[in-house]
């Protein structure tokens, strides 16, 4: 895929205000933003709410639904009102999952123009930090400070049943993400490792590969990961101030002479952020965006100059993109020139990637 060669800039289109505390996470509705369906963005915050923003006819985003703190914990017997840490849409865009420091995951369904909490996933011992739907929308993965990763299956009637509890990380698990095409799950952790999980054909899930510092992995907390569109590459970001690119075209397995096609390190991007990198996202057009505690957003692409080995380079750095830490950067899946970012400053910004002409 060819990307514009001219000089690029991120132009701020809108700043969305409404959350009363840091915004932790963002998710674009994958079924929105095309074929007459307005773009829809979910956000969640330390203010204990999730919000849904919808693009109006003028192009600007407005808050469409604001979940009350009570709703998130309403079905819990001893509802603690805590931070909503992450959110993720099902592939069909009809269901939204939100996870909370209150140890639960809530599933919301759009009914008319409203969202109703239709299910609550309970089981983790403490803070649930991330949630991800698999490609078909039948499985949901969650992870927690309790060091475990849970896989839930959606039953008929939108009931969710835990089908596996994955142990292996030695510290909190910061994020889970399914491969975009196949049922392979990746988790990243405060224990500095990346783990790859797959089913053995017998309904049992196992860790099939662990990437630690000895395998060119990270030397501190791994905060996030993202696959490229075709799923043959993955990028991770860390408190060690680097981003790492992985070749995921092979079969994940503990690397050895017998497994030359296991997932492997391709490239390390370092020296671009000077504080913890919290978020990374790979656009459909091949642009990697990163957001960090240095308040900056960086964009990277694969360079085609050296044909023999992969090489990634910075295309631009937006200093002071926000007034405080950037916790999430997400490209719009339908319009890959639109980026959303969320920050400790309580705002969400919508950016347009534009070529500087002349």
């Amino acid at each position, binding site marked *: 895929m060819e990307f514009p060669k001219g000089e690029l800039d991120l132009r701020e289109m809108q700043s969305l205000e409404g959350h009363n505390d*840091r915004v932790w996470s963002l998710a674009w509705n994958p079924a929105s933003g095309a074929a007459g369906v307005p773009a829809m963005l979910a956000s969640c915050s*330390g203010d204990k709410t999730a919000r849904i923003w919808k693009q109006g006819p003028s192009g600007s985003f407005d808050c469409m639904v604001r979940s009350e703190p009570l709703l998130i914990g309403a079905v819990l017997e001893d509802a603690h009102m*805590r*931070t909503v*840490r992450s959110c993720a849409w099902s592939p069909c865009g009809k269901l939204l999952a939100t996870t909370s*420091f209150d140890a639960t995951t809530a599933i919301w369904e759009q009914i008319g123009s409203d969202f109703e909490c239709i299910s609550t996933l309970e089981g983790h011992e*403490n*803070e649930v*930090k991330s949630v991800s739907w698999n490609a078909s929308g039948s499985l949901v993965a969650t992870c927690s*400070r309790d060091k475990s990763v849970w896989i839930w299956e959606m039953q008929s009637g939108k009931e969710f049943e835990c089908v596996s509890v994955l142990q292996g990380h030695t510290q*909190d698990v*910061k994020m889970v993400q399914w491969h975009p095409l196949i049922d392979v799950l990746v988790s990243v952790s*405060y224990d500095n490792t990346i783990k790859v999980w797959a089913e053995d054909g017998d309904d049992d899930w196992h860790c099939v590969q662990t990437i630690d510092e000895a395998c060119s992995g990270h030397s*501190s*907390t791994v905060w996030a990961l993202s696959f490229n569109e075709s799923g043959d590459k993955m990028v991770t970001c860390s*408190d060690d101030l680097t981003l790492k690119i992985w070749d995921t075209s092979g079969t994940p397995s503990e690397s050895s002479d017998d497994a030359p096609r296991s997932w492997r390190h391709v490239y390390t991007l370092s020296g671009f952020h000077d*504080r913890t990198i919290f978020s990374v996202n790979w656009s459909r057009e091949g642009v990697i965006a990163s957001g960090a*505690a*240095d308040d900056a957003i960086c964009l990277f692409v694969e360079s085609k100059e050296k044909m023999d080995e992969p090489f990634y380079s910075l295309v631009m750095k937006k200093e002071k993109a926000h*007034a*405080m*830490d950037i916790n999430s950067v997400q490209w719009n899946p339908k319009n890959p020139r639109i980026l959303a970012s969320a920050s*400790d*400053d309580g705002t969400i910004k919508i950016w347009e990637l534009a070529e500087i002409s002349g």
Partner: protein
Amino acid sequence: MVTGLINANPVVYERKERHLRSSPVVIDEYAVEPIDQLEIFEHVRDIKDPEHPYSLEELKVVTEDSIELDDQQSYVRVTFTPTVEHCSMATVIGLCLRVKLMRSLPSRYKVDIRVAPGTHATEAAVNKQLNDKERVAAALENPRLLEMVDECLAATYI
């Protein structure tokens, strides 16, 4: 809580003289006032030790010199020295320092908190935890821990 003090007999040091700032004759309330090391120290010196009726200054857990500051870059790093090597209160002390600075400094500030090198048995683990903002955020939603922190900070707001 009579039994099981981590450090039953800490050495208590004298407190430093309070510096009196001379007020400038012309006061321009819109002028940007640079933040200095002393100002940061003023914010944290009276934090009470979680175990003792003494302040962090009196126990030499923090000193003026343990504060590194770059106001231009909006950056501050506080290095504290736990009274004993196995101090299980180190994370609570670190949390108190972080919360106090979070509440006192302008939001543009980036704050790092760490234990002085070689002064704690699990130094790396304590430092990692204190600088993981997700863990800090979760800890501060724990009412018991927050109450403990607020108790240690109470004297700093007088």
